[in-house]
């Protein structure tokens, strides 16, 4: 039936049904990506689904309910399936120029504005700073002018230097969009960066250079005295692509002016669009930012096991480590297990070691109770001068850790990789912020059922899960 309709007509209908709003645009593209041949193989079902998305994501109130998207319970990667960047690049290569608005696409913030200003307030030791700074945020006002005003209000000399340094650290470079633009640069597409910001151009050029990003022009609203949309209009481009996470204020108006829209839904937004367990507000913001950027940016297409490791088990193990003590701590875990990298402490199942400390913390990871007993005896025999302090990881956690034994035994699998990646990413992006055990436990509890299912299924099935998207 489909091949009898004119291609132009089908394209037009498709365009209407996939461009209603940001959610429709994103979710219809994901649906397509999940089964690239669906439109051809089952056109009726595909068409009805498109209609369904158009109805659901337009209904006020209803459209914000994340039906079928729960951390630890749903395989979210499959719901949020973006195109591989090399395939998406064909869209950017259609035109001789591209404009990109940097924030929420090329660089992803760890902390949102309000929380970021709170951190600055803390560093500046200036109570009340965050609220006033937030109020002064205007894209056409330069940072120097803002700080002049702040200095006047707080009756002391304040310099923007600290904020600029912290802002640079607050950005996580998005490898997916960096790659997309790098492909464009290789094909000699002109790249224009525009950004609504009170920070100077040098601030952005520095972080672009640091990430080896090529560009042709860079314009900042505070210097141009107009917003990013008006800056693009002023460029006088005829044929160009628009890469942005800002659907309503950038993609849509520029599309109306002839720009080819390449909508990139912000990874942080994707995390907000799912059900969470009850988490502390501060942790949740950081968690959403890091997990969104690292799992749902499009760079990876992780398996469900990896996703569970990253979103659920990783935060839990991360939350436990500070309670176990870092100095003179030996974990009863395989010496070549991935946990060695995470704990930054000795991991061994071999008790023939001499440590020479007056107090040695021995962490029972629960992987082999009988083996641990012998291990303790051997350690004591080789360290007669030391006092042994035995800590049970499971008792500290207050929840069954058996499904996570692979982390300590050295078995390399997707769950373990997810756990390790979370711990490394979270530590580096948040400057080693801690996670409360209750937050960690809440996430682990939500994913517990599926983690058990995956771990206890036979090995073949576990690996099949590990690769299937």
């Amino acid at each position, binding site marked *: 039936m*489909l*091949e009898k309709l004119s291609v132009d007509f089908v394209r037009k209908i498709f365009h209407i049904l996939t461009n209603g709003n940001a959610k429709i645009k994103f979710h219809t593209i994901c649906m397509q990506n999940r089964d690239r*041949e669906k439109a*051809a*193989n*089952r056109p009726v079902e595909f068409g009805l689904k498109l209609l369904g998305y158009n109805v659901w994501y337009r209904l006020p109130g209803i459209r914000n309910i994340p039906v079928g998207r729960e951390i630890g319970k749903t395989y979210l990667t499959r719901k949020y399936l973006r195109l*591989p*960047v*090399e395939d998406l*690049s064909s869209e950017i290569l259609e035109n001789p120029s591209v404009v990109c608005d940097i924030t929420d696409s090329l660089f992803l913030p760890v902390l949102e504005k309000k929380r970021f200003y709170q951190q600055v307030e803390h560093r500046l030791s200036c109570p009340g700073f965050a609220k006033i700074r937030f109020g002064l945020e205007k894209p056409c006002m330069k940072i120097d002018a803002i700080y002049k005003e702040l200095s006047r209000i707080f009756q002391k000399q304040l310099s923007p230097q600290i904020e600029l340094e912290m802002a640079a650290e607050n950005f996580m470079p998005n*490898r997916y969009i960096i*790659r997309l633009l*790098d*492909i464009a*640069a*290789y*094909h000699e597409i002109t790249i224009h960066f525009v950004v609504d910001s009170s920070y100077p151009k040098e601030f952005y050029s520095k972080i672009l250079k*640091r*990430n*080896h990003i*090529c560009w042709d022009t860079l314009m900042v609203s505070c210097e141009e005295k107009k917003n990013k949309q008006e800056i693009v209009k002023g460029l006088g481009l005829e044929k160009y692509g628009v890469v942005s996470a800002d659907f309503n204020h950038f993609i849509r108006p520029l599309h109306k002016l002839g720009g080819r829209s390449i909508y990139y839904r912000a990874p942080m937004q994707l995390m907000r669009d799912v059900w969470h367990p009850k988490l502390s507000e501060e942790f949740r913001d950081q968690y959403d930012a890091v997990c969104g950027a690292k799992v749902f940016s499009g*760079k990876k297409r992780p398996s469900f096991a990896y996703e569970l490791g990253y979103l659920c088990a990783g935060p839990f193990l991360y939350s436990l480590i500070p309670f176990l003590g870092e100095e003179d701590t030996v974990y009863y875990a395989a*010496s*070549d*297990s*991935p946990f*060695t*990298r995470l704990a930054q402490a*000795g*991991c*061994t199942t*071999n008790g*023939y*070691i*001499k*440590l*020479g400390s007056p107090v040695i913390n021995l962490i029972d990871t629960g992987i082999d109770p009988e083996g641990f007993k012998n291990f303790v005896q051997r350690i004591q025999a*080789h360290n007669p001068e030391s006092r042994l302090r035995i800590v049970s990881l499971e008792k500290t956690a207050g929840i069954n850790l058996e499904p996570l034994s692979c982390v300590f035994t*050295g078995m*390399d699998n997707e769950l373990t990789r997810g756990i390790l990646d979370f711990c490394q990413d979270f530590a580096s992006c948040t400057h080693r912020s801690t996670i409360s055990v209750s937050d960690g436990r809440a996430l682990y509890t939500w994913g517990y059922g599926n983690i058990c299912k995956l771990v206890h299924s036979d090995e073949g099935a576990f690996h099949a899960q590990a690769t299937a998207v």
Partner: protein
Amino acid sequence: MVLYHLSTTYQLLYCIVHRMARHPQEEAGLLMVEYIRPEKERKEFIKKLEETGWFSFVRLVPENQFKLRRGASLNESSTTQEIEGVIRNVCSCVRSWLNMDLSSFSRIYIGSDQWSFGIYCLANHIPHVYVEDASGMLSQRERYLKILREISMTNYVISQYLHGAGTSEDEIARLSDVRNFINGFTDEKAENFSIYDALTQEIPERVPELLAFYGAEPISVEEEAPVCVFMTQYLKSMAVKDLDVQEQITTMLVDYFAEGFRLIVKPHPKDIWLNYRRILPRAVILPHNMNSELLPFVFSRPIDRVLTASSTSVGGMAPFAKEVYQFTTEIESFHERLHRIYVTAVLLKRLSQCAGQALDISASAINTVQLENFLRILEVPREKGGLAVKVTGEEEEFRGSEDTIIFSPSNAGERRCFSVTEKNLLEVRGSLCPEEGSLFSPAEYTVYLSSAQKKIWDCLSSLAFVKNLPYSGAKLYIESRLIIWEEKS
């Protein structure tokens, strides 16, 4: 009249040269899968090909159109009935589109028989000659099927069902570059045909014509600087489909194996996503669309070194290069292990210096191709009957051995805890320290040496140097130290 069917740029050159060399007097027809060129380039490309007069007709097989008509897509759990249904639909599409009597061709050559025309011929038991997908690929069936599976599951399922991809009873021969078969592989139906041999021995007079068609300009290579050609790969046919990983592999290989060379990059025709101008700013980047098999005919002199991760096209350059460095496909999945193998090779070199003799190296549970490449590049002296050294990736073997042995763990674990009862060890640690913006992460690669030859310890324990990896944006600090039990406490 003969008929060729193909889907890759390698096969196109292969078939053109084959047609010129082996069927010069006969007419020839050409069918190509439309995906061989991007949509907007197709018309012009066909016109250009027709104008050469090499083929009586050139037709693009409209695979996209067939896809819409073939019915449901297949997967590995599809039933026989479903598979046969799709095959029937494909055959019916091909039959009505083809509109020609295949029995009128004296020989039919089919490259990539997983596409519609190949399916039609296999399903109807039409005798034909199979043409391999890339140089020597017939010998790498497993790798080929893996790529096929990832590119199109439906085609893969049909290919398996019809016993295609170089295993069909209906194949009268399998045209392949036998010289590039992996060691030990044989196929009784293999019929050798090499582009390089044909162009140098059978039809050298046709070379200018071919170069003109591909727009290949002569490349003048100065005599002073040694030249290394780096052959890139198509991301979609690599094990890890991540541009960051591909970039890491590229920079690592160039840093380790092209130091001091003038670098020329030959991108795979479909490798259009990695920005080699940014990654390797001092390198000469050759055009994508020229086949690497033509490179020997454009350089003004033989080149010194060919380097690739695991591209099959290296075979085309091999006869023209003084030395070739290539790796097994393991490098695609575990590229960072290369650092550890480098540390191992450095230790072996030092061991030879300290012992004052060549080494007789044996290896187990370690990638021997990677080790061999580093031993060559570092010029580690080796000879039979020299100082016997075992290199192993197995901890158990290391612990149990009394001979001179190096333990180079295959996984990325951290330092091992060796027990008090064990002998003294030399620990050689490579610390990878990336600069800001590097794609690499900090990592440590530790290898251990155990030997009863006490006289070498002092010399070995002073090993310390830095390997600069400029394109990778990192430095590898290598240092050794003796682990004596008391020191660990």
